[in-house]
């Protein structure tokens, strides 16, 4: 037993989980005990000065230190590595995953971290060939270039030549990549197991064929939207890569011709055929392959697959667990009868009828997840029948099923007491009496979406009984007020996400109740809650984990409020302040100073000048900016900011500014990997929605 540290009383940057005493066991069988784990880094510093007892830290084997570092959060690791040279070196050797913010940092970072296994370059929009040729560690296992441009076959040659043990390559979105790049990959990365080349439209059958032959250990291949690939390439993949487990053929122009070969893959677990409109039921008719390993089948957007075709596929896939049939226009019948292990069905956007849904109810599977969002033809009767038969349902999505009334909610709440996720967005026929039922019966709910329903304070009070709730979306509920939110704030301590979009009845009181009650809050949407003022910001600054804040249209929030929140919530990554006309340069300066993690910002219609904007360039990880109708800006200020923000990947500007910016500058910024989006919208007051959303408001709908 080595007693490493005893008592240091400094602000802790190493948080060892749960118990105060942690035991590390090493390969050599030594057991190390750390009592009252505190700041090791501070301990080291102090040890040098006085404590001979703590000398042992330096003498500790590296593997033990690695075990300690394994338990630390990213924030603590930074502190540790900054404490002394020894720990700096140890931390450098310990790190396995790297996600640099800019490609220009890469050479320096790589020389420090030599034992990197996973390199994620998604934040580097521009990765020139020279970088891939540079000192990448030879032991590298995975590299993600899915959002990077600028490299070519030559760079990939350097990469695979140096890192022969690469297991995972992601070059998705490489629209300029072609067969030459595939040739390089197939030539060098012989151990490759996972390859993602989504959206690589230049890749043809030849490229895929080379990969199939060269990388025969492939387990995962994602060819989504590779429009140059046809049946021939896929067939060759199926013949050559017998180990394939995941195959994504979404939006690939294949027909049913290659499916026999694909379904003969012995280990295939997930097959995505979304948007393969070339697959028609006739080509599926003669399928007699049995693919018993298949767990997930995605046939969404396959408009030519009828239930007959589905039947012939599912005949052989008896172990199917997940079936995605969204937007596939098929009439359900008995196609799922024999899928006894199925536990998730997604029928989003399908036209279903009563008998089809009842056949789902009659099947002998144990359904846990059912998604019927935007389905035409869902009635109270059919839905009640299904939930009556599948009482183990955990997730139910009936977004935009407009025929649903109180009756359905009664049967849902009666049958499905295990529900953790319930989405009722835009089910506008649900009466106020339904919400208390939800609160009473579905106590396990974690995710509840009641956007655009007639929810009121009583309903919120009942819902607050769901103490596990972590995501609550109650946008467009005009009847709720502070009182309802106070119940939520008191009861739902686990709440991480709340959406109050255009719920106009709430004021600072309600927000304060939420902010004080739900200290884990990460995302809050207060867009167009016009009664919100700086006081709300003040109270929200207590939520230190807040990362997404949307105060679009909250015109009473001023720079002062923004300053307090940036001081309190250092983790903010998304900030939407559109139409907050009281926010000016002062707010920008404090954002620039405190919110070093900010990634996305929207400052349209704010009262900002060049100075405030230029200050934002101080934020090194800033990726996207939306700057529309900001009157105080000059073209030169905008240009300077764009030039100074080196990590930008996306900028939204008004189309009128295009002519004001120097063309060369635009080209230069584009060459760094930034995409310009030119918006045509005219200036508007925007306090009322230009159209009343008829269907859905959130991303998930």
């Amino acid at each position: 037993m080595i007693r490493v540290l005893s008592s240091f009383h400094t602000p802790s940057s190493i948080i060892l989980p749960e118990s105060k005493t942690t035991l590390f066991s090493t390969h050599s069988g030594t057991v190390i005990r750390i009592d009252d784990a505190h700041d090791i880094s501070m301990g080291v510093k102090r040890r040098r000065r006085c404590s001979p007892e703590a000398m042992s830290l330096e003498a500790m084997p590296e593997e033990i230190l690695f075990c300690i570092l394994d338990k630390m959060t990213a924030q603590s690791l930074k502190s540790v590595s900054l404490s002394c040279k020894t720990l700096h070196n140890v931390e450098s050797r310990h790190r396995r995953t790297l996600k640099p913010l800019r490609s220009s940092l890469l050479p320096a970072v790589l020389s420090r971290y030599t034992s990197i296994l996973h390199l994620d370059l998604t934040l580097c929009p521009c990765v020139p060939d020279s970088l891939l040729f540079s000192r990448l560690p030879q032991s590298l296992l995975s590299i993600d270039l899915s959002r990077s441009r600028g490299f070519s076959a030559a760079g990939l040659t350097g990469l695979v030549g140096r890192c022969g043990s690469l297991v995972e390559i992601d070059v998705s979105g490489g629209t300029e990549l072609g067969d030459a790049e595939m040739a390089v990959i197939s030539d060098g990365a012989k151990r490759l197991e996972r390859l993602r080349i989504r959206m690589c439209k230049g890749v043809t059958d030849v490229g895929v064929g080379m990969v199939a032959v060269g990388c025969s250990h492939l387990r995962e291949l994602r060819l989504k939207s590779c429009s140059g690939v046809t049946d021939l390439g896929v067939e060759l993949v199926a013949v050559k890569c017998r180990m394939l487990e995941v195959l994504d053929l979404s939006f690939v122009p294949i027909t049913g011709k290659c499916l026999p070969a694909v379904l003969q893959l012995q280990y295939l677990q997930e097959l995505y055929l979304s948007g393969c409109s070339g697959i028609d039921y006739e080509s599926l008719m003669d399928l007699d392959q049995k693919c018993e390993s298949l767990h997930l089948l995605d046939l969404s957007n396959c408009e030519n697959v009828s239930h007959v075709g589905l039947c012939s596929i599912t005949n052989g896939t008896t172990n199917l667990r997940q079936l995605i049939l969204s937007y596939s226009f098929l009439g359900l019948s008995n196609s799922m009868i024999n899928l006894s292990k199925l536990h998730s069905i997604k029928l989003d956007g399908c036209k279903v009828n009563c008998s089809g849904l009842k056949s789902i109810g009659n099947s002998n599977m144990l359904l846990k997840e059912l998604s019927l969002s935007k389905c035409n033809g869902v009635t109270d009767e059919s839905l009640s029948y299904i939930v009556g038969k599948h009482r183990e349902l955990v997730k139910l999505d009936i977004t935009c099923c407009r025929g649903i009334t109180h009756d359905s909610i009664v049967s849902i709440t009666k049958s499905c007491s295990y529900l953790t996720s319930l989405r009722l967005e835009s089910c506008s026929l649900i009466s106020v009496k339904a919400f208390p039922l939800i609160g009473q019966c579905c106590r396990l709910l974690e995710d509840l979406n009641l956007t655009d329903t007639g929810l009121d304070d009583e309903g919120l009070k009942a819902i607050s009984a769901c103490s596990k709730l972590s995501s609550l979306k109650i946008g467009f509920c005009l009847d709720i007020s502070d009182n309802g939110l106070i119940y939520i704030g008191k009861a739902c301590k686990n709440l991480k996400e709340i959406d109050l979009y255009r719920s106009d009845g709430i004021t600072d009181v309600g927000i304060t109740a939420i902010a004080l009650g739900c200290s884990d809050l990460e995302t809050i949407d207060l867009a167009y809650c016009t009664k919100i003022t700086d006081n709300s910001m003040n109270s929200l600054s207590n939520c230190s984990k807040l990362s997404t804040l949307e105060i679009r249209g909250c015109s009473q929030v001023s720079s002062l409020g923004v300053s307090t929140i940036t001081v309190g919530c250092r983790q903010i990554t998304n900030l939407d302040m559109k139409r907050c006309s009281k926010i000016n340069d002062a707010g920008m300066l404090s954002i620039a100073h405190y919110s070093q993690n900010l990634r996305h910002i929207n400052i349209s219609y704010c009262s900002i000048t060049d100075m405030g904007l230029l200050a934002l360039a101080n934020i090194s990880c800033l990726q996207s900016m939306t700057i529309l109708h900001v009157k105080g800006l000059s073209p030169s200020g905008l240009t300077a900011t764009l030039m100074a923000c080196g990590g930008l990947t996306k900028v939204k500007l008004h189309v009128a500014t295009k002519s004001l910016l120097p063309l060369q500058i635009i080209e230069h910024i584009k060459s760094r990997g930034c995409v310009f989006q030119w918006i045509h919208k005219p200036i508007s007051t925007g306090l009322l929605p230009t159209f009343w959303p008829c269907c859905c408001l959130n991303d998930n709908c």
Partner: protein
Amino acid sequence: MDHEPRKISKSLLEPSIPAISNTNSVRFDIPFGSCSTEDFPDYGNHQSRESTPLTNTTNQDPRLMLNNLTFLEQKIHQVQDIVRSIIEREGRHTLQPDELAAQHQLVTADLTSIIIQLISTAGTLLPSLQNTLLSSTNQPSSAAACQPQTVSNNLQQTETFQMETSNINGIVEMVEPVLLPIGEDHDVKDCEDHGDCENLLPGSYEVLQLEKEEILASHTHFCLICGKGFKRDANLRMHMRGHGDEYKTPAALAKPGKDSSSEVVIIKRYSCPFVGCKRNKEHKKFQPLKTIPCVKNHYKRSHCDKSYTCSRCNSKKFSVIADLKTHEKHCGRDKWLCSCGTSFSRKDKLFGHVSLFQGHTPALPMAMDETKVSETSTQMPTSNEIMNDVCGGFCNIDDIDFLDIKGIDEEPSFYSSVDFDSFNFGGIPEYTDNNASQLSSSYQVSENSRPFMPNDYDNRTINDSNSHLLS
């Protein structure tokens, strides 16, 4: 009118069989049988109008020919007399105009008949032309009228002749000095529904066999008047219009054989004259050919020299000109490459190939070029070493690999055996090691191609061959 001569022909043929040096006498019965059906519009339909047995009888007998010639002589004398009498009467001015016209008509008719007779007599001497020409002994104008009758006659006649043919073939074909290898069967393309053939019971169809010369004859339709040959009957009919107004009638121009109507159509299948071929009726698993074009293409493809060479790649050879034309459409456009160097004109063929063989992979044409450049450039400095190895009399594996790549680049000449000959290594003077560094890449190709060389070349030393290239 037909029956009598056919008996004669039989009696003529049977004793003469052992003496027949070529197979003509046996062969010509087949077109007569076949041409009466609709299957072969371009294959001698006009012959069906003729009474063929008559011509058969005239065929081999020199006495008959002598008769013919005497007859011609008499005929010429007759015409001479008529013309003389015309001249005399002209001198006396006693001739009536209508009388004169009649005389002229007589002369023309006589001359025509003489010409026809002459041609037909001459035709007996030309083996492959004979049947069509001899048939001209009948008046074409009368042919259309008696067609139905003759068709039925022909059928009967074919049956009887068939028996003879099968008897004779055994003897005749054994003597044929054809030693061509039996090539691949391309006939499926032509006889697309040859599955039907297989469904036919062996006895349910008639098997006919054309002879080699007939298959290879360039023209199968001949003008009765001038003897010009045509490949198609239609072309012949067009040509005939130039010989007089009587050939311009709709009846003469109509496609013959269309109105055979009520008769029972006997299914006909063809046998390849090459003994041992699967398409020959002697073969155990005989698969008959369906039409005469099938027979022709099959015979040319399988049993003839491939005399047409592609002018682009200089390596592919064909015996059927249509095949050459098809190839030339795609030649040089084989854009689907395999890593093994094989190229395909179709993507699915490449992928079939790749999925069949372990380790083969689709290749990029451009990438190949790049690697070629880089490989050759890196290899160039070491070419001396290679040369030394070569001069030592062997090539190590690495070199061969390298050379293989070069070989692919230099295709198609690399693969064609013909081009090796063009290297012309015969009679090679001395070669010294000093010259090794000056060797061009052509030498390396030649070295790599050595395994394909004839044995006598192998016996020469490499030095010899090199010095020849340099000299």
